[in-house]
C-alpha cells in the first residue's frame, strides 16, 4: 500500500511543476526588458502646448480625442521602457465636445460626417447628445497633459489664464479654467509644480494660425513687442516669440529634465486651405464666353470713362486692361476683392496660382456667382446696351462694375498674407531649432512632416495618409487639427527624434490602428 501512495504523490507533484501561463523568451511587459529609455527619464512626463497637444479634433475637445492625443500615445510607449507615473488627462465630460459656462453653451459640439438622402457627405455639428462639460466644474489635478486649446506662445506664462472671471473678456481660456490649480496660476506654473522629468512643448501654432484661418483679417504685429496689446487673429512678433519660448524652455530644463520641442507646421499644408481649390470656378463654354465678354465690357467701359476724364488713351487702356479677364471652358480661378488702389481702382482681380481659399467658404454662394459675377437683370440690360453699340451713362457703368462679386478678404489667404505667415513661421522655427540645440533637446520638424503628408502622403500598412479633407486620414473635420491617425504619425516622429537624441529605443505605434473621422447622422 505504501508503494501505491508513492505513485499518487509523484502524480500530484508532476501536476505542480507544469506552468499554466505561457511565457515568451523576451516579453515586452517587463519594463526595461526589451526597450530602453536611454538617457531620458520618462518617470514624470508633462506635455505643454495648445489644442494639438490636448487632442482637440473636429472643432472640439472630447474624451476619445484626448485619449488619442499624441502625449497620451507617447506616455503609453514610454511606459514600455521604464516604470512611469500615470499620465493624467483633464478629461472632458463626454464625447459631444461642447463647453458650458454656468449652464450656458459657449463652444459648439464636435463635427461629424453626415450623409444626406442624396448620399452627399458633409461635416455637421453633432447633436446626438447635449454637451455636459461645464467649465465652472474645476477638476482636481495635477495633470500631465497641460495642452490648452487656443493658447499662443505667450499665454502659457500668463497668470490668471485659468480665471473663470476672465473668460468672457478673452483674458482667460475656458479650457484652462477647467483644470488650473487656482484662478491666479499660469500654465507654466502648474507644469513646473509637477517637477517633470521629461517634457514636450508644441506651442506657437496659434501665433500664426488665427491670422491664417481668419483669412488674414488680423494684424501682423511684427515690431510690436507688447503681446498684451495683440488681438486673437494677429501674428506674434518673432522677437516676442523667441523671448517667451526660450524662457519657458529654460524653466522646464532648470532641474535637468529632458524634453522634445516640436516646431510649427506651414499653415498652407493643412486641409483647411487645400480643400477648396482657387480654380474651382468650373464653366461650360457658353458661360466662359459670357464672363469673358462681361469683363471685356468692364475693361472697355472703364477705359472709356478714364479717357472721358482726360486720361491719355494709351495709359487708360493699359490700366483698364487688367480687368479684361478671360475665362475658359473648365476650371478657372476665382475673382477676389482687394483694397481699391491707384493701380487697381476697381478693387478686384483674379486669384494667383498660390493663393488659397479657406475651408469654410460658403459653397452654395460659390455656385451662384460668389467669386465671379453676379449677373443681375440690371447688369444684363447694360450689357445689352453695349452690344447694341450704345454708350452707358456713369450710373449704368457703375451698375456694370457692381456685377463683379469677388471673394471677401476673410475667405482668402492672398499672396501677401501667405508671405507674412511664412516669414513669421520660419522665424519661429529658427528659434525652436536654436533653443533645442542650445539645450541638447530633441526637436521634431512637424513642418516638414505635415508638408510630406500634404505632398503625396505617408504610407502605412493600410494605405496612404494624405492631407485630403475628410478622406485623407490625417486631418479631422475642422481641417486644422489632426485625427487620431494624424496624431499617431506625429507621435511616431517624436519617438524617432527622442530615440535619436537620447539613445533610447521607445517603440513606435501602429498608425493603422488609429481611426480617422467619425460618421454620424445625429446632427442638427
Amino acid at each position, binding site marked *: 500500500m505504501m508503494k501505491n501512495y508513492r*505513485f499518487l504523490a509523484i502524480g500530484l507533484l508532476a*501536476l505542480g511543476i*507544469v506552468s499554466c501561463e505561457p511565457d515568451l523568451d523576451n516579453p*515586452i511587459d517587463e519594463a526595461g526588458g526589451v526597450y530602453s529609455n536611454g538617457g531620458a527619464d520618462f518617470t514624470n512626463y508633462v506635455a505643454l502646448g495648445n489644442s494639438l497637444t490636448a487632442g482637440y479634433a473636429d472643432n472640439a475637445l472630447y474624451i476619445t480625442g484626448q485619449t488619442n492625443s499624441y502625449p497620451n500615445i507617447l506616455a503609453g510607449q514610454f511606459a*514600455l521602457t521604464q516604470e512611469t507615473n500615470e499620465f493624467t488627462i483633464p478629461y472632458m465630460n463626454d464625447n459631444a465636445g461642447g463647453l458650458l459656462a454656468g449652464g450656458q453653451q459657449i463652444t459648439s459640439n464636435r463635427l461629424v460626417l453626415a450623409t444626406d438622402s442624396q448620399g452627399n457627405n458633409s461635416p455637421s455639428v453633432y447633436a446626438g447628445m447635449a454637451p455636459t462639460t461645464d467649465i465652472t466644474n474645476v477638476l482636481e489635478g495635477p495633470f500631465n497633459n497641460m495642452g490648452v486649446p487656443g493658447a499662443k506662445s505667450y499665454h502659457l506664462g500668463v497668470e490668471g489664464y485659468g480665471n473663470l472671471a476672465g473668460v468672457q473678456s478673452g483674458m482667460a481660456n475656458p479650457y484652462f479654467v477647467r483644470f488650473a490649480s487656482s484662478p491666479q496660476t499660469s500654465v507654466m506654473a502648474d507644469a513646473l509644480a509637477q517637477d517633470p522629468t521629461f517634457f514636450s512643448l508644441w506651442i506657437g501654432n496659434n501665433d500664426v494660425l488665427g491670422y491664417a484661418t481668419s483669412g488674414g483679417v488680423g494684424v501682423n504685429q511684427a515690431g510690436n513687442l507688447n503681446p498684451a496689446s495683440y488681438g486673437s487673429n494677429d501674428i506674434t512678433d518673432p522677437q516676442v516669440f523667441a523671448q517667451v519660448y526660450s524662457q519657458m524652455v529654460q524653466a522646464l530644463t532648470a532641474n535637468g529634465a529632458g524634453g522634445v520641442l516640436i516646431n510649427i507646421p506651414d499653415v498652407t499644408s493643412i486641409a483647411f486651405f487645400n480643400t477648396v481649390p482657387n480654380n474651382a470656378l468650373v464653366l461650360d463654354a457658353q458661360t466662359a464666353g459670357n464672363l469673358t465678354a462681361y469683363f471685356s465690357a468692364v475693361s472697355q467701359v472703364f477705359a472709356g470713362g478714364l479717357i472721358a476724364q482726360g486720361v491719355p488713351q494709351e495709359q487708360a487702356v493699359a490700366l483698364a486692361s487688367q480687368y479684361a479677364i478671360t475665362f475658359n471652358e473648365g476650371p478657372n480661378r476665382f475673382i477676389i476683392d482687394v483694397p481699391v488702389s491707384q493701380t487697381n481702382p476697381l478693387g478686384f482681380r483674379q486669384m494667383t496660382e498660390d493663393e488659397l481659399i479657406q475651408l469654410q467658404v460658403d459653397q452654395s454662394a460659390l455656385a451662384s456667382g460668389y467669386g465671379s459675377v453676379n449677373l443681375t437683370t440690371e447688369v444684363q440690360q447694360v450689357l445689352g446696351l453695349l452690344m447694341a453699340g450704345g454708350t452707358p451713362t456713369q450710373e449704368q457703368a457703375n451698375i456694370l462694375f457692381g456685377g463683379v462679386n469677388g471673394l471677401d478678404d476673410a475667405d482668402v489667404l492672398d499672396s501677401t498674407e501667405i508671405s507674412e505667415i511664412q516669414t513669421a513661421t520660419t522665424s519661429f522655427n529658427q528659434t525652436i531649432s536654436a533653443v533645442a540645440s542650445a539645450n541638447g533637446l530633441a526637436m521634431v520638424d512637424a513642418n516638414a512632416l505635415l508638408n510630406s503628408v500634404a505632398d503625396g502622403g505617408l504610407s502605412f500598412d493600410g494605405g496612404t495618409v494624405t492631407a485630403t479633407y475628410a478622406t485623407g486620414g490625417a486631418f479631422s473635420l475642422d481641417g486644422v487639427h489632426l485625427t487620431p491617425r494624424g496624431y499617431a504619425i506625429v507621435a511616431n516622429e517624436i519617438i524617432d527624434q527622442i530615440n535619436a537624441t537620447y539613445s533610447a529605443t521607445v517603440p*513606435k*505605434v501602429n498608425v493603422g*490602428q488609429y481611426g480617422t473621422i467619425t460618421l454620424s*447622422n445625429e446632427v442638427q
Partner: protein
Amino acid sequence: MKKLLFLTLFGLAAAMTYAGGYRVGLQGQRRLAMGHTGVAVVDNAELAFFNPAGLVYLEDRINVSFGASAVFSDVVWQNDEFGQMARTDSPVGTPFYAYVSYKASDWLTLGLAAYTPYGSSVEWPTDWSGSHLVNNIDLQAIYIQALASVKISDKLSVGGGPIYVNGAVNFNRNLNRTLSDIDGNRANVTVDASGVHAWGWSLGAMFNPTDKLRIGANYRSEIIVEAEEGDADFSNIPASPLTPFNDTRFDASLPLPAELSVGASYEISDKWLVAFDYNRAFWDVYQSLDIDFQDPAVPDSENPRNYKDANTYRFGAQYIANEMFTLRAGYYFDESPVQSGYFAPETPRNDAHGFTAGLSVNITEKLAIDASFLYNRFEEINESYEYYMENGQNVPFEGDYKTVAFVPGLGVTFKI
C-alpha cells in the same frame, strides 16, 4: 521502483495533447495517457473511437468507458515593433467521451459512442490589437455514433458505423481596425449558430499476426457542418447610412476534416505494452472561412485559411505495476495544418510536442478509475496572418506567439 519513477517523469517531461487546427485529441484517458495511441490497442471501450474493429476482441460482455478532460490552454502574443502584447483568458474546455460496447455474439459486438473530437475556445481581451480578426470564438461539435464490430477470424476484424454531428459556433470580432461609434466603442459582429447537424461515418480494421502484435487502421470521414440562418448581431455601428450594418442572418460552412490512423501495438511481456500510431488529418479541405450575410447591404466576409493536411506521430507505453495500478506514458508530435502567413489568432496552433502520462486504479475487478495528464509544449513562433484586407490592401497581423496547454482528465472503465 526506479523504473516506475523514470516512466512517470518521462511522461511529464513529454507533455500535452492537442492536435492542430481545432482538432482536440482527447478521446479516452487510457489512450491519451499513452500519447493518444490506440488504433491497435485492445483494452477497453475507448476502442469505439480509436478503432471500432477492436471492440469485438474485448472479452467482457459489456464494456463501458466514460470521462472528461479539463483543457487549460492559453496563448500570449506580442509585437515588439509596436510594443503590443495580449494574453488569452480562455475558459476551461471540457471535452468528454462516453462509450459502450455489447458482445451480441462471438463474432459481433455492437456499440454506441459519444465524443467531442473538434472544438475550440479562445478568448482574447476585447478590442486587443488583433480584434479585427477575432475577439473570441467558441466552437463545439458532439459526435454520436452507432457501431458494429465484426470478427472475421481471430486474426482479422472490421468495425464502423454512422456518425451524427451536432455543432454550435459563437464568434465575435471587430469589423475592422478602427470603426467605432461616437463614444469610441468599436464596431463588432457576433455570429452565432447552434443545433447545426451533419452526418458522417468511420470504418476500421484490425489484424493480429501474432499473439503479441496487433496492427490497426481506422478512417473517420470528413464532415462539413453547414450553418444556415445563424444570427449575426452588429454592435456599436455608427449612426450613418455609410455603415449599413443591421442585424441579419448568415450562412457559413466549417469542415471537420477526415482522419486516417494506422498503428501497431506489441506486448513485450505480461507487464509491458508499447504502441505506435500515425494520424493524418485531411485539413486541406479547410481553404477559407466564408460568412455569407443575408442582408445584401452587409458585405460578405471571406477569410482565407489554406490549411494543409497534417500528420501526427504518437508513441505510448503501458506498465502493469500490480493488480491495482497500471501506469502509462506517451509522447506525440503534432504537425500544425496552418501554413506560414495564415496564422490566425482564432486557432493559433503551431507544431506541438505532447507529453502524456496517466494511470488506472482498479477499484474492483470490474471497475477502474482512469486518470491522464497531457502537457502540450509549443515552440515560441513568429508568425503572421496576411490575408486581412483593408481598402483593397492586405494588412498583415504578425507577432510572437507562445501557447501552453495542459489537460488533466479523469475517466471510468467498467466491464461485466
